[in-house]
């Protein structure tokens, strides 16, 4: 059996765990001045606050919203603890994101569905006892159905779909519950084809489905019938990318200032990459305008590297390629992908790189692998010290 766990209003739950006086109130985590709401309590959601939503709008729809600013590093720590508790039940844990994941219980040797249910209930209780956060669970024979089940009765949801009842379980649910069906598709399906429930889709004649969904119709039909063969993947050790982003307190229009921020992000991400003994090849710079429209541009080096200086020359060109409109920016992010850890191609003119690597090694030790900022690069002078430890995706 597969279990999907989904923490309820995760960031808010963590804040409430630390400050119990916030429980039962309209609380949201987000930046006050210019930020966006990244998590809202169920009481706040009842007032029309959703995520992501600009803070200013959230305060308009819910003037008595209690706004808590984002605590860096804290949520990652709780997330780790939550998944560690899951690992006491089964080693097969797939961390999908900071607040949700899948457990595969097949290696646990449970003999009946009652045993499984009991074990997952104990897990739900244990998470509450140890972390004071609530998590919703869905139990089913596959990932798709488990995921839909866990989101069905939040918060503190606990939905079990017995084997063989998947199609019947999904049939009365709205079509929008299927992954990949957003509000626009949902509306279009209802208006044009009269498909409102997952059951409508599962019962649809094949040629009609083919006409609506094109090449992907078989997958859609399989989903509607609750069929999914995806397996729980536990390669969480391997980060697929390293990224960092910053929303500015005030829009920034100067290229030099943005370049400085991007370079600082490189300086903060590289120690984490070196600590994981990885190298990266592709850098992507994303920018966001005040109206939330965004652009990104990426470029790859010939060879993967773990040295900051190799990426500095890309900052200017990538920023210019992404930042086309003559407007100030509210956000910039840097992402490294094409992560490698295989054999390393040696360089012919290696003296400069060797020196840089030795220097980086010393700096990493002084800066505690990116967790402190004892020594900074010159281009960071005049900027406030680094904010937070870089996160992995």
């Amino acid at each position, binding site marked *: 059996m597969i279990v999907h766990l989904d923490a309820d209003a995760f960031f808010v739950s963590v804040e409430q765990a630390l400050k119990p006086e916030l429980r039962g109130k309209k609380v949201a985590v987000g930046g006050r001045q210019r930020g966006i709401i990244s998590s809202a309590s169920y009481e706040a959601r009842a007032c029309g606050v959703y995520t992501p939503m600009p803070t200013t709008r959230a305060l308009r729809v819910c003037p008595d919203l209690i706004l808590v600013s984002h605590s860096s590093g804290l949520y990652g720590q709780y997330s780790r603890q939550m998944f560690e508790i899951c690992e006491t039940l089964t080693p097969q844990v797939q961390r999908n994101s900071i607040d949700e994941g899948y457990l595969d219980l097949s290696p646990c040797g449970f003999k009946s569905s009652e045993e499984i249910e009991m074990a997952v209930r104990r897990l739900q209780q244990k998470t509450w006892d140890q972390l004071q956060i609530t998590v919703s669970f869905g139990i089913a024979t596959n990932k798709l159905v488990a995921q839909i089940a866990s989101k069905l009765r939040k918060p503190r949801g606990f939905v079990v779909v017995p084997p063989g009842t998947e199609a019947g379980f999904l049939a009365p649910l709205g079509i929008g519950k299927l992954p990949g069906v957003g509000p626009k598709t949902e509306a279009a399906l209802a208006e044009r084809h009269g498909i409102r429930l997952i059951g409508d889709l599962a019962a649809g004649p094949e040629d009609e489905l083919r006409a609506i969904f094109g090449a992907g119709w078989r997958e859609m039909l399989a989903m509607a019938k609750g069929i999914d063969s995806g397996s729980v993947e536990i390669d969480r050790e391997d980060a697929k990318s390293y990224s960092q982003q910053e929303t500015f307190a005030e829009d920034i229009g100067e290229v030099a200032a943005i370049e400085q921020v991007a370079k600082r992000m490189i300086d903060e991400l590289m120690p984490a990459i070196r600590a994981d003994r990885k190298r990266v090849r592709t850098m992507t710079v994303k920018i966001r305008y005040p109206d939330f429209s965004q652009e990104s541009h990426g470029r790859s080096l*010939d060879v993967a590297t773990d040295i900051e200086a190799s990426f500095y*020359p890309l900052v200017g060109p990538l920023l210019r390629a992404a930042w086309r409109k003559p407007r100030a920016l509210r956000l910039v992010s840097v992402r490294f992908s094409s992560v*490698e850890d295989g*054999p*390393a*191609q*040696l*360089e*012919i*003119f290696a003296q400069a790189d060797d020196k840089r690597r030795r220097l980086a090694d010393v700096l990493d030790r002084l800066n505690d692998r990116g967790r402190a900022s004892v020594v900074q690069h010159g281009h960071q002078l005049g900027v406030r010290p680094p904010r937070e430890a870089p996160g992995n995706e």
Partner: protein
Amino acid sequence: MKFKINRDHFANGLAQVLNVVGSKATMPILSNVLIEAEKDQISLTTTNLDLGIRCKIKAEVKETGSVTLPVKRLATIVRELPNIDVTLDASPNHQVKLSSGGSNFRIMGIGREEFPPLPEFGDEKAYSLEQAELATMLKNVSYAQSTDETRYILNGVYFNFKDGKLSLVATDGRRLALTAKEMTVPAASAGAIILPAKTVGELLRLLDKGEKVKINFNDRRASFQIATDKDNSGLIDSVYLYSKVVEGNYPNYQQVIPKETHQRIKLERELFLQCIHRAALVCSEKANSVKIKLTSNLLEITAQSPDFGEAHESMAIGYSGPDLQVAFNPAFVMDPLRALTKDEVFFELKDEVSPGVFKTLDSFICVIMPVRLS
């Protein structure tokens, strides 16, 4: 302007110049070829501002003059014309009438005033070389140029006229190829340039048209005058290539060429190339290396990728040194082997972190850095 020309000669001339066009968005004129008719020839010129090409073709000129036309389209049309005789007639408003047999085309041109002039050369250094020899030298090194735009200094071939020889060098920072030929280098004419990769490509394409090629260069530009005396498809005089050079200091390549010889083996080039090529068939982007192992009179090549499988090749060689093992990117091994023409090459190795060095009895060296196995 009005002239009559042989269709195949015209098409051949356009084919010489049509690779060099600029971006249409910024300067539409750079997508055009400048056609100038004078006496008994027409000249065709294209440029992208970094690089320009001019060639001349014989034609029956009835009225001198000039016009510019979109080169790609024109070349396609000329190739397809039905009759061997082609007449081109340009009116003063830059409209061109192109006729051949029963085909008639009217094409919108742009006046020549907007066409950027090719650079004038002042006091530059000049050399004359055999075309075939320069082509061979370029082939022997050009694969090692870098395509990484962040290392623009390496995006070209380094021409160094110094100490009684011309050395050509290319490197991408992981391998370096060098070839040299002895020639008279007057002290006043000693000097070096980095010829951009695009120019190298065009030069390689053009270098089989005749006996000699003349090189002129200064700190900012280079030009190549390529004789067309072996050409019988209408080209006359020479093809001229004008190029900017990459400005900057080329890295000190002398210091990365190993001074000592450690273990040297003699290899049959074709056989070794085939073995590496076969072994590399199992490589993947993530596992892109072949391991070379030397033991007494035996060379073994292995490659593997975790999701596919592995390959093992062996070759008998003359070797009595210590056992050693080193891994390389297979392309770095194959590129020089493909470029060379000699039947035998020497390959020098030391250990798993030291470069491998290919040599021939000519002045050719290719240094390739290994892949360090984790």
